[in-house]
Structure formats: C-alpha cells, structure tokens
C-alpha cells in the first residue's frame, strides 16, 4: 500500500501492514483505515514508535454513512498529532451496525475518555474497556442516539425531571 510520503504511515505499514486495509492522503491528510481487532496494537505502536511519536490524540469522532450505503455503516475516526515531529495522522476504523463496539483508546491516551463518552452518547457506539461509559452531553433518560442519520431532526423527547 502506498504511504503518500508520510513517514508515520510508512512506519505503520511496515510494522502492522496486515492490519491496514486502505490508505489515502486526500488534501494532504495522511489516513490509514485499520482493522477493528488490530486497532489497539496499531494505536499503541503509533504512540510509542519514536518515528511516529503521536503523544496527542487531538480528536476522536464517528461518522454515520447510512445515506451513502456505507458498509460498514459507522466509522470511528482518530486524529493524532505529534508534537516532536509536527505531523498528523488520521486513523479510521469501520464499525458495522449490528456490532457497534470498538476497543477503547483510554489505555493509550487518557484524553479519549470524554470523547468516547460523547461518541457513545451521540452515535451509540460502545467502547470495550471504557471504565465509565455514561452519556456525556445528553441526559440519562434520553432515548436513541441523535447524530445517527435515522434519528429525525424534529423528533422530540419526553420531558424529564421534576414536574413543571
């Protein structure tokens, strides 16, 4: 697979080439699509390898490809940044609808905690090994996961809390 001139992507392909299913570098953002089962290995490698040195997880989010007939339907996207090398990498992992789980990234970056809670909250994707997977932005009684494309924008939720 091609590395598009990104040293980090090259290192990842050399070390875990069998885990990477696709790469691209659209608009200059190096991207690797990683198999879900191998994700923790790949993330650990990316943090610890001195050539990659991604000490910082800048962002973690999910995308719902329902309208694009995405297969798998969801994608969890990690944006990594290395302060030493000043480079970025995007790691994506596909998540099928009937098995919405991803291994948690908290052992690698503690900052993933709230971001994973947010993805669980808004997309209903579970993170295996997350110590405290509560909703982050919405309240516990909320039904459904609003950023899924099949959640209608107009849908209303029942009022909760004390009688008003």
């Amino acid at each position, binding site marked *: 697979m091609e590395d598009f001139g990104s040293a980090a992507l090259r290192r990842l392909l050399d070390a875990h080439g069998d885990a990477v299913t696709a790469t691209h570098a659209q608009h200059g953002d190096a991207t690797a699509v990683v198999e879900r089962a191998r994700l923790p290995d790949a993330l650990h490698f990316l943090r610890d390898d001195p050539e990659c040195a991604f000490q910082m997880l800048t962002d973690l989010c999910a995308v719902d490809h329902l309208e*694009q007939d995405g297969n798998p339907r969801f994608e969890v996207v990690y944006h990594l940044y290395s302060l030493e090398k000043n480079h970025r990498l995007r790691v994506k992992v596909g998540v099928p609808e009937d098995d919405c789980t991803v291994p948690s990234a908290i052992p690698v970056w503690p900052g993933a905690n709230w971001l994973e809670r947010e993805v669980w909250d808004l997309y209903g994707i579970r993170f295996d090994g997350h110590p405290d997977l509560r909703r982050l*932005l919405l309240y516990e009684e909320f039904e459904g996961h609003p950023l899924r494309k099949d959640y209608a924008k107009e849908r209303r939720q029942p009022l909760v809390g004390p009688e008003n």
Partner: protein
Amino acid sequence: MAEDQWLTYRERETSDDDFDRDLHTEHQILNMGPSHPATHGTVKFLIELDGESIVDLDIQVGYLHRGFEKECESGSWYQCIPYTDRLNYNSAILANLGFCLGVEKLLGLETPERCQWQRVMGSELSRLADHLTRCGAACLELAAMTPFLYGIQARELTWDLTEALCGARVTTNYIRIGGVKHDMPAGFPEQCRDHIARIRELLKDFDAVITANRIFIDRMRGTGVLDKERLIAFGVTGPLLRAAGVPLDVRKDEPYLTYAELDFDVPVGEVGDNYDRYLVCVEEMHQSLRIIEQCLERLEKLGPGPVNVLDPRVRWPAKGRVFNHMEELIQQFKAVTEGPMVPAGEAYSVVESANGELGFYLVSDGSAVPVKVRCRPPSLLNLQPMPEMLKGCLLADIIPTFDFVNMIGGECDR
C-alpha cells in the same frame, strides 16, 4: 504561621505524624452548579470533600448542548457559518474561519491575499476579546471588580472594532467560503489604531492593579498544576499547555493564512499553574495587538483588491449584476437554492483558537449537504483533566482553575 496547618489532603493521608493524620470523618458531597455565580458557563461539579480538600471531582457538561452537528448536517454548507458563530461566543471569527478553511480545503480554493490579511486581523481581534473576557472574569470571580471593568472596557473596544468590520459584535458571521463577507470599511485602520492605543493603556492599568497583587498571587500561584506529559496525554492545547512550558501553537507549527509572514512570539510559562496561565494570556494579548498592527500596515500597502475568490461554485454572483442581468439572476437562484457542491472527501482543518486547537473535520459525499461537520472543541478537551489538576487542592481553587481552563459552554457542549 505553622506551615503544617496547610497540609493538603494528600499529604495528610500519608503523614506519619499522628497530629496531622486525617480524622477519618465522613466525606461530604457538594453540588456546585449548573448555574453558579462564580463560574462563567453552565457546568455542574460534583465534588467529594474532606473538610475543604477536594477528594474527587466529577464534571458534568452538556447543559448547553444545542445539536450543532445535527443542525449543520441538515442544511447546506453556507448555512453552517452562522451556527459556528455560536460555538465560542467570545471569539466567533475564529470558529467561522476554522469551518471555512475546512470547506476551502475540500474545494481546493486559495483565497486572495487581501482576504487573508483581513481574516488574520479578524481572528486576532477575536482572540483578544476572548483573553480579555477570561482574565477579566477571573478577576471578577476572585472578587476583584476594578480590573474586571478595565478588561471589559478593553473588550468593548475590541467589539467596537469587530462591529465595524463584520456588522455585529458577537455573532459575526463574517468569514465566507472563499472569502469574507465584505471588505473592511474606509477609516477602519485609523479607528483600529486609536482603539489599540486605548486597549494598551487599559492593559497597563489592568496589569498595575492585579499582576503583583499579593491576594491575587496567593490565589493563583501553585493551584491547578498538572505536569506537561499529562496535559499532552489529555490532548490539552492552547494557553493551558503553553503555560506548562510547551510552545505548541498552530500558528507557528502549521502556519495557515499569512501567519508565516508575521512577526510574533509565543509566550510560555514554566510551572503551569494558574498564575502562569494568566501571564501567558496577558502576553498573548500584547502579541495579538502587534499582529493587528502588522495586518493593518500590510492591508494599507496592498491597496484595494478582491476579498473573495471568483469561483462560481462558492461565490454568489455580484449583486449589482443580479438586479438586471438574466444570467446572473439564474446563477443566483442556483447558488442559493442548491448551495455549493463540495467534492466528495474528507478534510481536517485546524486553527489556533483562543482556547487551543480548534479543528473541523468535514466529510462530504459530493452533494450540497454535509455528511459530517465535526468540531473539535478545545474547551471540552481542556476541561477533561480538571479533576486531576484539583485533587488534593482546596475547594476555593476550583474557581481560578476553572476560569483559566476557560470552558465556554457553547463550544464545549456544542
């Protein structure tokens, strides 16, 4: 004064001295917020206290969740821009800019030079307003009213400039995909220079009453410290990380717009406590003022020119021609009802906002409606390690720490 009187919770737990050892009284749970007079922002703290020491802290966010991403994913690309105003309501231009840079990355657009300078100027004005609010509000919440008023007066001056530039003080809606809404008004440079002088004067007064004030220093020094490895692991960016001594600044590391040509410094602290954060913010304000002056100079040298790319995909036809030319009229209809068709793909754009790295991850499937507009909120990630910063500290330390973490509800909860 006996020093051991001030042992923190952590030290008392491990102390050998029987006198110091904890009495093992029951811990108390305290609810602080969601609307607390000493926190600017709606957030709830669930604090476990042992006497006055914080044993554990749970932060509950989400009180201002308005479905920004859902709302953006149901309109066309240009309709998202007013929503980005409402992310960080102190520095709306920065959020406008982050989003538009992302869309331009997807479209492969390069904006004209004049537009870039104006964008830089706008974003520095925004940063200035944000830092002034942060420092001013921090003083207010530590019960210092006078510096707060100086800070707010300086912020009013920045907002006057923002109003002259964009047409609104807070919700600017200024940056457009491929340009800005309109050119800066005539007479803006003079007004700007005049206001900058006044802001400098106010900053001097601000500094005089607070920076070396012992009461302020006692509240700020040594509170909310977390070492830099931990901060980096939590994804903390912006003044918080710079105060801990890491000179990470997107404007320097991955210069966007014309930042590479500008002359400015990156202030860093050494300890990473609240006092360093305050000093870093104040220094950044001076740097922002310097940048604005440079921008004005360059803009004057550049002379008039286009501030929008002439790309029919994103640029609505010139209004003067729409009124009496059929072709432009049809184009206008098409542009408004369809919106720009953004090529399929994904892009992540970053700008250095006042709180840290503000990223937009945009996914398009080639249609006029975005598939995903993800805002990487610096406030949320900066707030996350706050329990770690505060464990073992006193209850009162929550206030200055929260002030300098500067959680902005609109951006944190989106």
